[in-house]
């Protein structure tokens, strides 16, 4: 838990913002922690940019790797299918 979140120190640093961003985005912070994050965001364009680009990185990783972007080939590797059927027969 962040010192600021525990001690009630009024403001969160950028380091603490980044450290607890994962929990913030999950909605896993306490009401007070979330409020502190919102106060920090309202005053810190750097952390706004960090949060937006962190979320963009997650979406871009997904979009770059998932089949909807790079369709699964419709041809089925016949040798593999036969190997699986043979392995099943022998199991």
């Amino acid at each position, binding site marked *: 838990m962040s010192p600021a979140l525990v001690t009630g120190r009024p403001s969160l640093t950028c380091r603490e913002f980044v450290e607890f961003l994962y929990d913030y985005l999950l909605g896993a912070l306490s009401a007070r922690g979330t409020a502190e994050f919102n106060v920090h965001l309202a005053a810190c364009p750097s952390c706004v940019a960090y949060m937006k680009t962190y979320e963009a990185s997650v979406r871009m*990783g997904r979009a770059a790797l998932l089949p909807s972007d790079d369709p699964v080939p419709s041809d089925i590797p016949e040798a593999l299918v036969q190997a699986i059927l043979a392995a099943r027969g022998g199991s």
Partner: protein
Amino acid sequence: MLELNTRPVEEHSLLRRLRAGEDGAFEALVRRETPRLLAVARRLLRNEEDAKDAVQDAFVSAFRSLKNFEGSCQVSTWLHRIVVNAALMRLRTKRRKPEESIEELLPTFLEDGHHVRHPHEWRDTAEALLAQKEDRDFVRACIDRLPESFRTVLLLRDIEDLDTAEAARALGVTETVVKVRLHRARQALRTLLEPRFRRGTA
């Protein structure tokens, strides 16, 4: 040779036929699911032969544990979990080189807690930035640059949609470790993507 069956198979009827030991049902399942499972194994293993072996391992172990499958999820979901485990098993046996540090890819802060380098917004939405194939290839290459234990957690959680508990079980680590690694992996990926996508770049 049995007839190629690529039509969606009614789930409960498929299960019943599989449990009855119908060869045709098993072959239909293998043909329906292999392309998707192979894509999962390729993402995790990055090696064609290893990926094929993992898919084969997965089907063999699925067939052996068919009687224990309670039908609480779709057969395709069940197979997805099995192939992830089969791929992780292969990854573990191959991982011999020492793990690289991720520290240099994490953001740094001044003593007062401010960013050393101020993050910039990017020049477009995530979706628009990936319109070109070379940009998607770049993102894939950046994910490949992550140290293995971080790359694996990122793939399981953000790409393969395992939840924290499932990823922790599959990797044999605690849920806290999964959360910490995922957050660091995302931060490191962000660091690697930034020079290409930040505002002011082409």
